[in-house]
């Protein structure tokens, strides 16, 4: 796969409206910066190839290569990606009940992994008012501070890059699907660095149907919500069709169609609902508010789950078959919609040099997300 430079990155991703602000190109150099969800090139960089391009999850990523890096096997295009097992999960008795979303599974696993020194640092995404703020956390007690959903696209991978720069070697990351894909690319050593070792120790993916453009979302809420007083945000299950914003001054409801208008264009090309390139993926457990769906994808993901269960940080149970089928259907729908959109705009397998979106094997293209 050919690596190009920042100029091509800007043209193919940012100017083309595909950027989700994941932060993969940020904190590597002084040229690219992320602010309020938007990524900017401050000065022209003349290097013909750079990590900014190599790490980006939106520049014609070869999903086979990414899949080989993480799973040792090619990408299949199945709705839920490669996995070992799917469970229902929630925080165990070692975890204090707190301000975490649904079952608290991600917080539980990250707390456990930091506690047991499986990780030397965890990259999480907290919130400052409405603004998502990626953080490097080294103490298990600090995990809870970044436990709540914020729905806005966040430059989490920039904090991961920063953690690498600071010399952390076993980094845990809580990542959205696009961020997990960026991490898979980082792990594939695209710049062919000598003495390269995988800087990640555990990538905990979170399900994502879309994220919000922070700036547009903030504009939507301005005047309706005191942004500094936000405690928690939630989207209750259908048919509620609303977002609930809990603040110190009470709860504000925003109709979901209005919220959905603030989704960045780049999310429309996303094939991945369940963070397929993570070690484990966590999301809603349909019909339950006290539990999560947990997809265990890799050996190290399985080790982390088993250890967390053994030491009382996590409880797991079987996920009903019906839930699995609904999840797969939803994930398949997202994949199909994205592929149709991307293919319709010529953003699949561009052919001449690298351009945009994804590179897929012809079999996967034929499957079309089914």
């Amino acid at each position, binding site marked *: 796969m050919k690596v190009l430079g920042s100029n091509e990155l800007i043209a193919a991703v940012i100017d083309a409206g595909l950027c989700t602000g994941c932060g993969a190109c940020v904190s590597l*150099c002084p040229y690219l910066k992320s*602010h309020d969800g938007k990524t900017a090139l401050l000065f022209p960089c003349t290097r013909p190839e750079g990590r900014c391009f190599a790490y980006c999850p939106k520049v014609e990523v070869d999903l086979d290569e990414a899949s080989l890096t993480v799973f040792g096997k090619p990408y299949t295009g199945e709705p839920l990606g490669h996995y070992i097992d799917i469970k229902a999960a929630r925080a165990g008795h070692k975890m204090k009940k707190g301000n975490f979303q649904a079952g608290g599974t991600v917080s539980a696993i990250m707390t456990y992994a930091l506690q047991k020194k499986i990780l030397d640092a965890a990259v999480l995404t907290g919130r400052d008012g409405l603004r998502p703020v990626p953080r490097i956390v080294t103490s298990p007690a600090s995990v809870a501070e970044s436990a709540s959903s914020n729905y806005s696209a966040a430059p989490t991978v920039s904090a991961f890059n920063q953690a690498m720069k600071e010399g952390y070697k076993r980094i845990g990351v809580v990542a959205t699907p696009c961020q997990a894909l960026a991490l898979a690319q980082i792990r594939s050593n695209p710049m062919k660095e000598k003495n390269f070792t995988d800087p990640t120790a555990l990538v905990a993916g979170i399900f994502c149907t879309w994220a919000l453009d922070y700036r547009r979302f903030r504009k939507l809420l301005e005047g309706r919500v005191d942004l500094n007083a936000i405690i928690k945000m939630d989207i209750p299950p259908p048919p509620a069709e609303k977002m609930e914003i809990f603040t110190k001054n009470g709860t504000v409801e925003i109709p979901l169609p209005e919220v959905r208008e603030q989704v960045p264009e780049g999310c429309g090309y996303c094939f991945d609902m369940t963070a397929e390139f993570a070690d484990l993926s966590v999301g809603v457990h349909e019909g339950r508010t006290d539990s999560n769906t947990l997809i265990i994808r890799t050996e190290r993901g399985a080790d982390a789950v088993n250890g967390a269960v053994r030491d009382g940080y996590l409880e797991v149970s079987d996920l009903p078959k019906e839930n699995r089928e609904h999840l797969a259907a939803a994930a398949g729908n997202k994949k199909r919609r994205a592929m149709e959109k991307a293919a319709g705009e010529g953003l699949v397998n561009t052919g001449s040099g690298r351009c945009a979106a994804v590179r897929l094997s012809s079999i996967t293209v034929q499957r079309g997300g089914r």
Partner: protein
Amino acid sequence: MSYLFDTKSGTRYLMMGNDAIVRGALEAGVGVASAYPGTPSSEIIEQLSRASRERNIYVEWSVNEKVAVEVAFAASIAGLRSICAMKQNGVNVASDFLLHVALSGTRGGMVLVHCDDPGALSSINEGESRHFARMLELPLLEPGDFQEAKDMTAWAFGLSEELRSLVMMRSVTRLSHASGNVTIGDLPPTDKKAVFRYDGPLGDPDTGPVVTMPVPKNHVLLQNKLKKARELFEKSPFNTYTGPEKPELLIITSSACNLYSLEAVRLLNAGGRVGVLKLGTTWPLPPELIKKSLSRADKILFVEEVLPFTEENVKILAAEMAAEVGIIKFYGKNDGTIPMTGEMNPDIVVDACAKILGITYSPMPADYEAAAQEMLKTLSPVRDLTFCPGCPHRASFWNIHNALAIDNRHGFTCGDIGCYTLGFLPCGFNTMKTSHSMGSGIGIASGFGKLKQFGMDQPIVTVCGDSTFFHAAIPALVNAVHNKSDVIFILLDNSGTAMTGFQPHPGTPLDATGHELPDIDPAAVCRSLGATVEYADPFDIDGTQIALLRLMEEGGARVLIMKQMCALSPAKKGKKKFEVRVDENVCIGENCGCNRFCTRIFRCPGLVWDQECGVAVVDEVICAGCGVCASICPSGAIRKTEARA
């Protein structure tokens, strides 16, 4: 001994044109001198301030050119001789008041020295201020060399008193900032008395109230003054002719162009064919002298800067005198013999004369010229203008540029004229997007800040210097605050009028002669208007950028004062705060993650790229030790340590 204090007439000095003007003013017994600094005029007041105590002169750096003329005018109508100095566009600033001074008339001799800058060597315009003389109906003088600059200045005060009119005297960069030999004259006694008499009848030029009304009557009086000036100029020794009685070609010239013309005649060895009429009194033109000169030759070449001022005025007279002077072929700017714009030099005059006279002249053998031009192209890389090493503006624009880029809403910066004008160039990271007259950045920004209703959501930043703030920015800031315009006004406070040589201004605690004065706090001025005011140190890169990003979230007129003293200020010059060096083992050079960020992007002249080793190096001769580059190095390779005192 300095020429300022030498009372012995007849001594010969090598002095700048501006010094010659100063000596002329001293010999005329000037009592009050005021100005706003502007290249190439600034040395006039600087030098007069040195003589202020000994020669009993009140010298003032005024807040702007209009006020400077008002201050000098007060002295004139109190019976003193006064002088004002300014650069070409200063006359524009002062012109409203000048229009009224022309009509009201003066008492003590009053001279306005306006120094034009043909070629815009130190300006962002090529304004031709001579036209004001015609427009304002004021007499205009132009010295043609250094001795004349002294003599004419001294004479101009008497002329002013004889005409009861302000006299304009125009210099140019190549005279003001060039030097030549001047033989000095006597200095008068220093006792002077000021009193403003106003009890006489309206219209009495010595004792009445000084007003412009009744306008119809005063306007007639003004025209009569010009008529008288014309008569006086007929016999002026400052209008000279050199050459044969009936030359083939007559050059009509003035100011520094006189020297270029004489040089051209010498180089072409054409003294027997070309005559040079050098005019020292260029408005109003003396018609009899012009008639006599036009009768000398039927080919006339005008050599002047910048616009064809004398050319057009002479042509009007030639049309009126057509019956007497006959048909003349005119060469000059209007027919393209001489370029309409830009600075003149001897070579342009040589080319023009050679063409008219059919002389072949080549300044260099063709093969020599070809070789020289090739070397110029391949071996002498152009020196783009840049901020000095250690200049706070480099850091300020770095912060503004980065904050605007990070904010990512296509925000931009409006500016005006000062050293910081270079902010539009790569040395200022191409940050400044508009640049016009003093104070216009905030005025333009005030307008931009009201375009929201048309869908404009770009953040608007404007910058001006501390001296400019007082000169012309305050009314525009009032406008922005009052009209609730959304702008960030950044005061680039480097503690002085840095560009013109660090003159004091109302924000500094000293006057022109170094005595203490109350300094006016720009922050307090801004706050009193209702703007929010914050401070930042531009050398604190992170802190300043965070402050800017926060301010961009807010509305209304916000003021950020970026305070850091000019690197050339007397307090800082030659003193390094930090010793700066690059750790070559840490510098990652051209690799991903840097790509020569300090030399390629930050571009301080104190940094050099070592091509062989692939690392940045600090040039200790150039580096001013500000230490800012240490903050921008992405790998921490640039190290700064406190310099030993």
